[in-house]
């Protein structure tokens, strides 16, 4: 899955990351390192803090304590330019969050044009290339409400890729989809992984985690209880909680 170049470079590193909502401790000290071109899946029961952890990585949630280093840069410090950081980290949401008042093409070209100041022409070329890649090149002029769930999510992936991010974050990308549409989205994610994209994926798709990821993190109760290769996690997990969780979902 991993390419040859600088795969030992650490792209994301968190140290004792904590997040509280008032009295509720959602993350209780997460320390993890993610390397370039690695595909990391985060699994665990709902309420375990998986999504919150992912959303901390691009500061959609503000951590209560601990630090996050993206390519060595401390992003929780007030001097960090959060907008340019986010421009380099694509995010795909459970509910797609396409912009309903814009065509598919405009959804994809808006951020490149406004944030990276790419010209209209080249942003549209790029958008069409990405739509082709996710298998939707004939939908450029459509509006989001004319698309199926799976198509929406593929557009959302193309939209994130248009910013040419170094990392892609996926927050349960298939959880809102009808079963027959999950495959088409996972296929796009798979090909992205094989191209060497660094990916962090919160998912309930154990098949995907097993097949595609380099590492699987099992989270429960705001902690990472196990961090292991998928072969190990899915066949012979070390932590008993991982074992009982997987017994329920597999």
């Amino acid at each position, binding site marked *: 899955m991993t390419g040859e170049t600088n795969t030992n470079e650490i792209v994301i590193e968190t140290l004792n990351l904590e997040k509280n909502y008032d009295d509720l401790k959602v993350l209780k000290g997460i320390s993890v390192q993610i390397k370039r071109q690695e595909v990391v899946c985060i699994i665990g029961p709902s309420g375990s803090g998986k999504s919150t952890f992912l959303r901390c990585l691009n500061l959609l949630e503000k951590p209560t304590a601990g630090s996050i280093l993206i390519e060595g840069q401390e992003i929780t410090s007030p001097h960090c330019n959060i907008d340019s950081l986010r421009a380099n980290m*694509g995010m795909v949401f459970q509910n797609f969050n396409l*912009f309903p*008042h814009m065509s598919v093409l405009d959804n994809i070209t808006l951020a490149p044009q406004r944030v990276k100041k790419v010209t209209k022409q080249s942003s549209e070329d790029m958008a069409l290339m990405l739509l082709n890649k996710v298998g939707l090149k004939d939908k450029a002029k459509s509006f989001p*409400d004319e698309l199926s769930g799976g198509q929406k999510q593929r557009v959302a992936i193309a939209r994130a890729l248009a910013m040419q991010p170094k990392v892609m974050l996926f927050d349960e990308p298939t959880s809102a989809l009808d079963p027959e549409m999950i495959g088409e989205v996972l296929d796009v994610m798979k090909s992205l992984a094989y191209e060497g994209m660094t990916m962090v994926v919160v998912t309930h798709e154990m098949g995907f985690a097993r097949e595609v990821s380099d590492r699987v993190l099992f989270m429960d109760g705001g902690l990472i209880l196990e961090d292991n290769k998928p072969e190990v996690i899915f066949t012979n997990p070390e932590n008993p909680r991982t074992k009982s969780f997987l017994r329920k979902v597999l």
Partner: protein
Amino acid sequence: MAIINELFNLGTQLIMSLQSMAIGLYTWLLYVWGKLPLLLEGTLLTLELTAIAVSLGFIIGTFAGIGRLSEKRFIRSLATIYIDFIRGTPLLVQILIVYMGLPQIIGRTVPPMVAAIASLSINSGAYVAEIVRAGIQSIDKGQAEAARSLGMTSNQTMRYIVLPQAFRRIIPPLGNEFIAMLKDSSLVSVIALEELMRKAQLVYTRDYRPFDILFAVSIIYLILTLSISRLVRYSERRLRNNDR
């Protein structure tokens, strides 16, 4: 017995006055027809005032509505004070503060037209602000998150993602605000601006036929408000069918 007599008398009086009203209807029409050019002149000014006030109010209200949701506490309280003050005090008082009160402080008179437009738009702005705030809050949080996750600034997110969707949703309540402002604009008659209400006053103080003229004026207001609410309902239906 006395009560029955009394009721009987009242009944005959009522029938007689109805009779005279029927006769009066014709004379009323004739009379109002003669005053119509004057009243329509006032109607035009009323519409003009309302349109300007709601348009300026829309601009003020957009900023105040965004300010109400600002992360900066100072801006938030500023917007809240403005909205609470305007919505919590009578428009009549606000008009008089601008027209009568302000000259005392700035040492020069304020022309009635300026005072009217200023007080009406500032008033409308506060109501529009609450509409805009509700419109912004009705947009799913995921929209802003998606925009921010692409690296857009909070201003860009507001401008390209949240406001375009919010504005589409608030067209119906903005229409209602227009109707409310159309009716409330009659209050600027107290500062002698010759809009519809003031024209009516001028006519009846001269002719001493207040009922005839006030009835006519009510009908003009009614025609205006009903047609606007029709328009609003039409636009509402179109928006429901086409949520883009």
